[in-house]
């Protein structure tokens, strides 16, 4: 049953990524050129609603559908890992035009070369795991 719930949420997410064109390389390029409001509108409106939603969940101690506490863990403290790691991610995001959600959506949409991006994203993650202790965090 829960499997079906996760699958449905994923399908909904995939359709949204594809239909909003957030999975389009062109939209990412356009965003970094500041030539359209589209991507800023998507992220911005999701964010405004997200902030309100999380404030309400915390304020009214809203429980999950299964009656459990919704405990949102704060992110670990740090500066360099976020700035350096974030910049490396940004370089790749702009080059491949795909972040880790949409890249999977694009397999389904039939753009097979995206598999190269995914395989190397897994390799990049692996590389981070090996080098983790040597990197500033």
């Amino acid at each position: 049953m829960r499997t079906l719930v996760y699958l449905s949420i994923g399908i909904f997410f995939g359709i949204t990524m594809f239909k909003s064109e957030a999975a389009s390389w062109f939209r990412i390029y356009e965003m970094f050129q500041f030539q359209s409001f589209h991507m800023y509108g998507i992220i911005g409106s999701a964010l405004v609603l997200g902030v309100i939603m999380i404030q309400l969940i915390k304020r009214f101690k809203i429980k999950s559908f299964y009656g459990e506490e919704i405990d949102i863990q704060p992110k670990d403290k740090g500066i360099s890992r976020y700035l350096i790691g974030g910049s490396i991610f940004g370089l790749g995001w702009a080059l491949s035009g795909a972040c880790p959600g949409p890249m999977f959506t694009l397999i389904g949409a039939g753009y097979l070369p995206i598999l190269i991006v995914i395989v190397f994203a897994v390799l990049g993650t692996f590389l981070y795991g090996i080098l983790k202790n040597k990197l500033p965090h």
Partner: protein
Amino acid sequence: MKYILDPWPWYVAGPLIAFIMFLLLMVGKRFGMSSNLRTLCTMCGAGNTSDFFKFDWKSQRWNLIVVLGAIIGGFIGATYLSTSTEVAISPKTIEDLQALGFSSAGTAYLPTELFDISALSNIQSVLLLAIGGLLVGFGARYAGGCTSGHAISGLSNLQLPSLLAVIGFFAGGLLMIHIIFPLIF
């Protein structure tokens, strides 16, 4: 039906993404896609190489199912819910991209130079996709999250680390598009 078959405007897509985050919170999970890349490493046996990959990947099975759904969603969106997959980017962007050699700008969903099946026989295209993927995977884990985990979930929870990460995303993206692209294309 036309509204579904046309590309979805930002004011529909943004709220839907917020709703997806809400649904995940309400089933006791968190919205974050890049952690799946780590789970895939663990499933491939990376736990033998680094402690970073030593965890019970089955605890992340739910998120892999979300990914499976995202793949199916991409298929449904492209096959049944679209009459055209042309992306109407701004005329200025089309002009700039064509000058860079992206002839498919304005007439395709992704640039054919990188994502058409024929691009697989072009070494430069394959190399660029590989480097892009490597940077995304490495950077996302280094920063502890990607667009979903930081730009949406983290910022929604007013997390300073997420703000730093998003500043990084943009610094890297701007560097790539404005400084590196003119050198490689």
